[in-house]
């Protein structure tokens, strides 16, 4: 009888997400904001509170974070990360500074503590690689000349997350200063070791894990990632970063095959993660953070736009391409929620999660729309420029 209730609740949630996902794709939006809204509807003070499925969704959400970061890590090889870091350090640095600043200032203005302020800076800084790469693919912009720049910025953000998450986890644990320093240096050391090891032994590790059998491969890669994630969590490095490092270390054939078998699993558990985050946010609390969320969103559109513009200009991209690069970067999503999720379980600033939810809902909707509008905007600006300076042509 207990299972009957669980299945009905879980089935209802997952089926509902399927309906929302279809709706989102038919209007060309990311499903993330809709999943968050669904979570709000099912959560405390929501429309249909869940009773039994809650604990499953909670565990599923943790697995969702591990899978999100694992599949992301599988997309990149360590060689790619290192070459990118060298080639695009300037753009990546500008991106992080310009986009973390609004969050930091807002945290300070709201009178939040240093840890919550740092989390908010991370939330505003990091774009959603999932949403952005989907928009770029859907718009047929993979071949565009500004696209390598946009993708490189995303790669560097992901790498920065691998440093940021352990630091935040350490600070959230609210231990002594010495303990925090130890866990942070442990995390950075692990990151450096994994990068160095996978640069040297990547093919060997990959050969050891590889199996032509999809089932065996799925079990091996998933098992290894959960093991490493667990150890990382135990060491206060954050499970997400452990999984990301496993993804980075695997490369070549094993990474390609693992990505294919893990993606459906990632989609399911990531959706559960977004719902769980929404579940923990009381819908009524959104009203109180609406004004700062929209203000931050407005600033976030501008700062990401500026980042993309500058980065594209640096590599000699013309004006319409700079507008495309800038608008592409606006969308925030999974990582902002991952950061907010960490603070939620540590219970630092209760309004932070609501603010993050509202912020992501706004920018996950505005981002893809702006990216789509950038083509007509770029064309009309180019036309206006030509009219203004007819002798140039």
């Amino acid at each position, binding site marked *: 009888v207990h299972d009957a209730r669980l299945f009905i609740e879980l089935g209802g949630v997952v089926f509902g997400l399927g309906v929302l996902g279809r709706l989102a794709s038919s209007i060309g939006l990311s499903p993330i904001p809709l999943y968050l809204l669904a979570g709000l509807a099912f959560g405390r003070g929501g429309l249909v509170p869940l009773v039994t499925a809650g604990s499953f969704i909670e565990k599923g959400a943790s697995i969702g974070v591990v899978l999100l970061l694992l599949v992301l890590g599988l*997309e990149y090889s360590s060689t*790619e990360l290192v070459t990118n870091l060298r080639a695009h350090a300037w753009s990546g640095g500008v991106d992080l500074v310009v986009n973390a600043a609004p969050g930091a200032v807002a945290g300070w203005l709201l009178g939040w503590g240093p840890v919550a302020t740092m989390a908010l800076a991370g939330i505003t800084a990091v774009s959603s690689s999932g949403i952005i790469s989907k928009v770029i693919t859907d718009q047929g912009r993979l*071949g565009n*000349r500004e696209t*390598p720049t946009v*993708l490189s910025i995303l*790669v560097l953000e992901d790498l920065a997350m691998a440093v940021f998450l352990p630091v935040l986890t350490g600070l959230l644990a609210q231990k002594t200063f010495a303990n925090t320093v130890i866990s942070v240096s442990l995390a950075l050391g692990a990151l450096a070791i994994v990068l160095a090891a996978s640069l040297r032994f990547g093919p060997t590790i990959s050969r050891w894990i590889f199996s032509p059998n999809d089932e065996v491969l799925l079990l091996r890669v998933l098992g290894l990632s959960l093991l490493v994630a667990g150890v990382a969590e135990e060491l206060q490095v954050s499970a997400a970063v452990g999984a990301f490092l496993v993804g980075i270390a695997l490369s070549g054939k094993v990474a390609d095959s693992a990505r294919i078998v893990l993606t459906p699993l990632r989609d399911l558990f990531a959706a559960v993660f977004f719902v769980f985050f929404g579940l923990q946010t009381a819908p009524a609390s959104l009203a109180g953070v609406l004004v700062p969320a929209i203000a931050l969103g407005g600033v976030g559109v501008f700062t990401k736009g500026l980042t993309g513009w500058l980065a594209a200009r640096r590599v000699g991209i*013309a004006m319409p*391409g700079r507008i495309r690069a800038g608008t592409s970067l606006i969308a925030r999503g999974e990582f902002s929620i991952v950061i907010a999720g960490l603070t939620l379980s540590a219970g630092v600033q209760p309004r932070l999660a609501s603010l993050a939810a509202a912020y992501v809902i706004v920018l996950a909707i505005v981002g893809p729309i702006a990216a789509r509008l950038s*083509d007509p905007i770029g064309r009309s600006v180019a036309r206006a420029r030509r009219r203004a300076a007819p002798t140039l042509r």
Partner: protein
Amino acid sequence: VDIEETALPGVGVKHEFTSAAGKRVGVLSHRSGRRDIAVYDDEDPDACIEVLVMTPEEAEALAELLGAPKIVERIANLRAQVEGLVSEGLVVRSESVVVGHSISERLPRSQTGASIVAVIRGSEMVVSPGPDFKIVVADTVVAVGTREGVQRVARLVAGR
């Protein structure tokens, strides 16, 4: 042709060049084997005006179509470079003694004095066919060798 290579993190690699006619062309090689051919916009040189998405099989077929005449062209160049070396594409007639037989059986280099470097069958090109490659009617056999050697091959595939 001056080809520029750009890495696309998480996707693959992109190669670009400007054609003699002034068009910018890009080939995007996805890790999955998918290939996109992009033609850039004249007005906005950073954007694609057309993108052709191809499955690995389609890309391979296209590469063969683009590559086949190139090989024949190269052989022609080779002939010009090395004096005394003759190469010719010879169509196999139905009355030929080689029909239904392998290259080693009826056209061995040791006897003819010319090598079979390629066989063109329909739109397909088999480069360096093995000794047991079976020849059928209407194949074009590309023979390279001395003038006498190529003439011997020509007689055999014509049926005489």
